[in-house]
């Protein structure tokens, strides 16, 4: 079947294969950048400047420069410096993880800072040690605090996977733009838009569910 000269079944087949790549980027990035972001948040809160200041500089660099540039950097810089680099997909994951960990670090730091001092004080008076206080009293409330901002970040990540095409990772946008110029049609771009929209509808729905699950209490 063809629409506007575009062989739709072939396009969909290629797009579905590219969707697999998008899923891999998405889930691998989440898998590594969320825990890493958590460590970044703790490092930023450290009272030792030797830990907190370099962490802040790292966040500034990766939040302050384009992700596209970072993708290029991790793809090509190792070749120039060491004469040997990462595989395309690996370079892509490294760039995404390091970039998103910087953002998650900031979100989680804000989530921790939003917990009133009185919660720590009550826990101390009752005899909880620092680890128990953090795990039982602080962290569950932080999770609730950061859900909306984290959902936002997840949706952005779905869309940011399109940037991987600059280092020729075959994701949805890469397939769509190539088909678009090959058949001289806007249809592939519209189909790609639907793919992203469907994925983010799922993300949005899941986060609404999670938010609801944490709705049993207010502060």
């Amino acid at each position, binding site marked *: 079947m063809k629409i506007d000269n575009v062989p739709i079944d072939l396009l969909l087949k290629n797009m579905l294969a590219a969707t697999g790549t998008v899923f891999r980027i998405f889930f691998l990035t989440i898998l590594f950048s969320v825990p890493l972001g958590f460590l970044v948040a703790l490092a930023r809160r450290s009272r030792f400047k030797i830990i907190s200041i370099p962490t802040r500089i790292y966040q500034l660099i990766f939040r302050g420069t384009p992700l596209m540039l970072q993708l290029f950097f991790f793809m090509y810089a190792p070749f120039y410096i060491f004469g040997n680099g990462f595989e395309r997909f690996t370079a892509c994951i490294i760039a995404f993880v390091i970039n998103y960990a910087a953002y998650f670090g900031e979100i989680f730091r804000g989530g921790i800072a939003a917990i*009133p001092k*009185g*919660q720590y*004080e*009550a826990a*101390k*008076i*009752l*005899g*909880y*040690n620092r680890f*128990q206080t953090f795990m*039982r*009293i602080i962290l*569950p*409330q932080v999770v*609730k605090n950061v859900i909306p901002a984290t959902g936002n970040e997840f949706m952005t990540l779905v869309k940011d996977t399109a940037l991987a095409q600059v280092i020729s990772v075959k994701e949805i946008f890469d397939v769509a733009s190539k088909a678009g110029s090959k058949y001289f049609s806007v249809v592939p771009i519209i189909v790609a838009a639907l793919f992203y929209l469907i994925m983010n509808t799922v993300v949005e729905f899941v986060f609404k569910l999670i938010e609801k699950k944490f709705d*049993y*209490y*207010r*502060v």
Partner: protein
Amino acid sequence: MLVNAQNIKKKFDKLHVLEDISLEVNEGEVVSVIGPSGSGKSTLLRCLTQLERVDSGRIEIDGQVMVDTVDGKAVYADANTLHEIQLKVGLVFQNFNLFPHYSVLKNITDPQMIVLKRSKEEAVKIAMELLGKMNLADKCNSYPCELSGGQQQRIAIARALALNPKILFFDEPTSALDPELTGEILKVIRDLAKENMTMVIVTHEMAFAKEVSDRVIFMDKGVIIEQGTPSEIFDNSVNQRTKEFLSRLNSYIS
């Protein structure tokens, strides 16, 4: 003597909040601390409950030394001793500080299970007894956000009592409450006094302090101006600053 604090000094930056305070509290005694805001009442409580560290002085709780001064500097006991001392004191905050993500019951059982390693059955039994005493047994499955300030404060008191502290400190327990809700908290404190609970209460409720206390301490600008029985302080004080403070309060009320 449950609390024996000698020559406590505490400053924030350059501001001297506590200037050479000494305070003794005996078992079963109810002591009220009154004074204008900024006089250091809350800081005193926070130093006695380890929320703040003193700069110098000596504090002994139930015979255990929390801090002593060596060569002009405060030296605190080791972590184990501090933890033991921590368990002997309870503190009720002005703004309750319940754990919002825990149900009422879990607010009271969790510290018992985590800190005192009580079994769940025992912790629940103790919690329900205390909730019954506070007339809140029917609220055990509610969350703090669903309750009034007065109810939340009674739960905070139950949570503190569940750990069997030797002494209970109150930091302005009714200041965050609507006037019509202060009565229910004052009644709970009154009942505890009848059971000979040792308590130190920082409060602005003068009538209540007069009624419930064995001893009243008047503080101003980081020092104890005078202390004595309620009638000595409220009715027969000869101290100029005490009289000024009390008459200023009276003029607001009338």
